[in-house]
């Protein structure tokens, strides 16, 4: 569904590459977690995958076709993004906001039909957001807003779902709910999914594959147990950690920095 082969990108005028030689293959029914410190190239990878940027070297393909060559509307029918943050310039109700996910399916002058409305209601229900449908976006809490954005992405009826730090600023319960929901969508609808996150432990527990980026390069990739070793994690995040196994998956515990021997 999504393939990167040696993808490299340098922003215009930048001194160094934002992404170097990254390869990745996401197939239907697979949830891939994308981990890495701030500035490691995660969002750049998302932009390449969605064709907003074209790689300066290597290839990025969706369904075997260069992502940057896709017609934007056609790509929006195949791949949906839950963006990290966005702010509507004008007030909007939840149902209307989710209907925006149907736009790539509508003809230029055609109005949304009964089928589109049914898909919107189904997407709202799938994200446990049906009760929010008539609320204004501005009145939603962080967790509710995130469910609405996921519903909008589902209304696009995509085969590839990309989530950019969807649980930033959510509490434990909402975080877990979102990861559970994404996992079950991937399993039930055989979606291909890429999840960008800072939650190493949740990524380890929910993802089939983990891609760990450091300074724009692949530090490690593969199953969570292969990638999340103490050496690798300490090297990439530049912090001492312990790794323990829980439910058969590695879990990371960041260590307190050792008190300096000179202090009393």
């Amino acid at each position, binding site marked *: 569904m999504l393939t990167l082969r040696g993808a490299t990108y340098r922003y*215009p005028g930048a001194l160094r590459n934002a992404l170097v030689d990254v390869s990745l293959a996401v197939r239907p029914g697979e949830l891939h977690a994308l981990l890495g410190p701030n500035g490691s190239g995660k969002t750049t990878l998302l932009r390449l995958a*969605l064709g*907003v940027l074209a790689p300066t070297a290597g290839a990025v393909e969706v369904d075997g076709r260069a992502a940057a060559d896709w017609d*934007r*509307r056609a*790509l*929006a*029918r195949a791949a*949906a*993004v839950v*963006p990290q943050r*966005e*702010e*509507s*310039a*004008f*007030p*909007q109700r939840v149902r*209307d906001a989710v209907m*925006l*996910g149907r*736009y*790539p399916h*509508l003809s*230029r*002058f055609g*109005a949304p039909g009964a089928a589109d409305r049914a898909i919107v209601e189904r997407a709202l229900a799938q994200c446990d957001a049906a009760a929010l449908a008539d609320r204004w976006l501005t009145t939603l809490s962080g967790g509710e807003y995130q469910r609405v954005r996921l519903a*909008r992405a589902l209304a*696009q009826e995509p085969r590839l779902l990309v989530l950019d730090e969807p649980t930033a600023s959510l509490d434990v319960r909402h975080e877990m709910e979102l990861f559970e929901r994404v996992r079950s969508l991937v399993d039930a609808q055989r979606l291909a999914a890429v999840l960008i996150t800072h939650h190493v432990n949740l990524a380890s527990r929910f993802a089939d594959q983990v891609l760990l980026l450091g300074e724009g390069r692949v530090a490690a990739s593969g199953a969570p147990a292969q990638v999340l070793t103490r050496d690798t994690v300490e090297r990439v995040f530049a912090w001492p950690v312990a790794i323990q196994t829980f439910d058969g998956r590695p879990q990371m515990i960041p260590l307190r920095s050792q008190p300096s021997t000179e202090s009393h």
Partner: protein
Amino acid sequence: MKWLLLVLLTGLALLSAVLLGPTHVPLAELARSPIVRDLRLPRGLLAFLVGGSLAVAGASLQALVRNPLADPFLLGLSGGAGLGAVAAIALHLPGPWALPLAAFVGALAAMALVYRMGLVGGAALDPRVLLLSGVVVGAFTAAITTAIVSLSEAAQLRNAFLWLWGGMSDASWVTVRVLCLYLPLPLLVLFAAARPLDLLALGEEPAQYLGADVEPLKRRVYLAASLLTAAAVAVSGVIGFVGLIVPHFARRLWGHHHRTLFPASFLGGGVLLTVADTLARTALAPRELPVGIVTALLGVPLFAILLRRWTHV
């Protein structure tokens, strides 16, 4: 219901534009009266077309710069048009079309300059830079305009000053016909962009992920809205507030979907300017006020009320 009311208001506004005036025309002679046929009817229609165009231009620019307080004249077009018009007056350019053409050329020149400055950071059009460029170009052209005005004779000065405040007194069937030929293209371009503009409200990157081709969209919308504004300013001078107030009310009543917002704004803008022009020529008859003064006198209090409600929500 809302639409019915709007259509009704449209009819009423046009009817009052035809009925009211310093010269009384009995209802029975309405169809035959040369005053109605040659003066009031084309003038009412012109006001309607100009008001509608300004309102749609305002609504689309608000979506483009993602700010509900944008106005069609914020992008420096009025300054360019004013400079063109004042130059035409100062140079005594002959013929009935010299003034509107000079204003149109001035507006287009300002549009091109602002657009070029908006591209300054590369190939992507940045709405924030666009806004700033509009303000800067507006200030620059206003300075030159004032310089010309201050060096010209008193009679010219008065003409130029009055023109800058807008007026429909040059209305004729020819201007109405020219607008009827000219307006459909930019209006259609904007209407075709209605749904992508809904997406743009979320920001450029989310809009792209939902299928909007953002760069061509911004260019098309900027050019079409500017062409509407340039035509409006060429035939009737600078008429403020219609492009700000009308989309604002339309957004409250119809919501932010541009497919309904554009037609509602067009009709609403038409109604407002037709009524304002009728007031302008009847309130102090036989003297006539520049219509921009009427829209400002109506628009500023309305805007103050809106701002108050806005900050209290």
